[in-house]
């Protein structure tokens, strides 16, 4: 597959990148922090799952942390996101507290959905996110619709969503791509190509790398090393600028690898061990750590700080109550005025300079 060759090629050259133009030292640390938090949360959640404290099934994004961290870091407070099941770092960057994520996994009352939806099926509306549905990639249309509203109202805002390689086979992928192309919408589509759709390899999903389709929909498609968080950020930053400047959508293919099974029960027997070995060498967190270590950043200190924070969050979440069945029938319908989506955290230093986003609100 094109995707298979793209990555190894691009990596070694790019890896020891010079100080990136748009990222301060602090930005680069924040990117690493988000990835470390994501991995730390998912590792802890996985053991909670093994202990039977997480009901249902459990999905994680081990090895793909750079994709959601890098892309979400380029999004402004007033932008809107539909975050998918391998993209936990995006929730963290938007400002969702780890304790609420643990509570979410465990189906507790303090979880983002208060136990109504499970595991990764959430989005905190208070930070500008619309939670995913299972049907893939339905959220592409929701993201396109938010972008459509921004464009109709003349707002300099952008919507972004993720989806997997397998999801590109579904009709909704096409309807969203075509619609966004026809209407030149301010939307960023991040195709998370992690080599597999559950057990299905790429060559059973498409004959040609779907990033090549963007062109046929009339907009830009770029393939990025999805294990390089700074490359992901930069590609998304450019795509967002294009979007808010009226340049239309962008399809970003993040080439990466799903390093765990599809879900907790999946032993991944169908994946050749060489493939896993090859990708182990390209761990996105190690790569960012190398970069920052070279700048004298105290990585161990950061790791320790995060570990402590997450262990505390787990303990706190464990003390939280399960939801009460009393109001289980409430809320099927909205009564009264709808509560609007709120703005999210936008830690990137580029957003400090006000003039960058005149007219936003």
């Amino acid at each position, binding site marked *: 597959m094109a995707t298979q060759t793209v990555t190894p090629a691009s990596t070694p050259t790019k890896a020891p990148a010079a100080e990136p133009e748009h990222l301060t030292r602090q930005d680069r640390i924040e990117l690493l922090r988000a990835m470390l938090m994501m991995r730390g949360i998912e590792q802890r959640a996985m053991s909670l799952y093994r202990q039977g404290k997480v009901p249902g099934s459990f999905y994680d994004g081990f090895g793909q942390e750079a994709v959601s961290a890098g892309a979400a870091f380029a999004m402004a407070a007033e932008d*809107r996101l539909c975050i998918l099941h391998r993209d936990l770092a995006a929730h963290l960057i938007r400002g969702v507290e780890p304790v609420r994520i643990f509570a979410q996994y465990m189906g507790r009352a303090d979880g*983002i*959905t208060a136990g*109504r*939806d499970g595991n990764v*099926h*959430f*989005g905190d*509306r208070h930070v500008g996110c*619309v*939670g995913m*549905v*299972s*049907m893939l990639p*339905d*959220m*592409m*249309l*929701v*993201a*396109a*619709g*938010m*972008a*459509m*509203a*921004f464009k*109709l109202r003349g707002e300099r805002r952008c*919507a972004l969503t993720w989806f997997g390689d397998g999801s590109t086979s579904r*009709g*909704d992928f096409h*309807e*969203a791509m*075509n*619609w966004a192309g*026809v209407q030149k919408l301010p939307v960023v589509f991040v195709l998370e190509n992690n080599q597999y759709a559950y057990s299905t390899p790429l060559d059973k999903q498409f004959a040609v790398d779907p990033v090549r389709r963007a062109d046929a929909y009339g907009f830009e498609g770029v393939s990025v090393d999805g294990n390089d968080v700074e490359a992901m950020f930069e590609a998304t930053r450019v795509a967002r600028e294009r979007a808010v400047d009226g340049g239309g959508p962008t399809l970003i293919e993040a080439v990466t690898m799903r390093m765990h099974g599809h879900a907790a029960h999946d032993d991944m027997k169908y994946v050749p061990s060489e493939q896993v070995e090859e990708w182990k060498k390209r761990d996105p967190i190690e790569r960012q750590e190398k970069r920052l270590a070279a700048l004298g950043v105290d990585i161990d200190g950061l790791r320790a700080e995060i570990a402590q924070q997450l262990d505390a969050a787990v303990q706190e979440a464990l003390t939280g109550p399960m939801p009460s069945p009393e109001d289980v029938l409430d*809320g*099927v*319908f*909205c*009564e*009264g*005025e*709808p*509560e*609007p*989506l709120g703005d999210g955290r936008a830690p990137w230093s580029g957003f400090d300079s006000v003039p960058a986003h005149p007219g936003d609100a």
Partner: protein
Amino acid sequence: MATMTYLQAISSALRDELRADERVLLMGEDIGVFGGAFKVTDGLSQEFGPDRVMDTPLAESAIIGTAVGAAAVGMRPVCEMQFSDFVSCGFDQLVNVAGKMHYRQGLAVPIVVRLPSGGGFSGGPFHSQNPEALFMHSPGIKVVAPSTAEDAKGLLHAAIHDPNPVCFMEHKHLYRRVKGDVPEGVFETPFTARVARPGEDLVVITYGAMVDVALQATEDLEDGSVEVLDLRSLVPLDTEAILDSVARCSKVVIVDEANMTCAAGAQVAAVIAEHAFEHLDGPVVRVATPDVPIPFSPPLEQAVLPGVDRVKEACRELLAY
């Protein structure tokens, strides 16, 4: 008061909303320049521009899915399915994305999906369907079905003001055949049932195009005085009004145009069988379209759609019970 057709009432509700609320946005295939397959949106794109009366690509899933997104950031999209039959192509976005959103995450989805539905004019299997029961069975979606011009306008205003996904079943056969007085300006018709004609010996419970059929079938019945209850709203279903009519009349005929099995009428019958058992003086009789695709040729279509004669016959038999 102005006299208008059912279709004009719908158009006028859309125009009033576009004027009153800049968040309102119409989306659909050929609804702009062309004014829609049935001309419901005729002239609106000229008055409000192509951005607010949007000609979309031929893509129902996208129409509904993007409407959900637009609604999530503050718009009030009103989607038109060119024929209700084609909602099957946007089914997933409607039931799984729109319908379950608020329960799962407290995010409201104020969209209206207009569904020109029903048969009676040789539309054939793909231009005659009545899909309302599919959405009654899917939690989180309201379903209304006006039978008069006034209710068409009032229910559409209420649907657009409602913070939830609402399927607005507009019956194609009523578009130009039903006329009536309609109050001026914006008004809301509540999502409750309406006694179309009071009676004492039997109640016909129905909605949409079948209300008129029921009224015709029972106006001159010498066998007894027949009430006609127009449900108007299927979700929420006005159980109170249903049980009240049954309590007073003790005999029930339920009429709907949809295929019989698991239809709205089945739900109404089940509610009555469970909660009005004491009041029943006879079987809960149903008149509906049998479980066949709606055939095209007039003699075949007329043979399957519930008509005045079948309803009259059913009422006669039950009154004699």
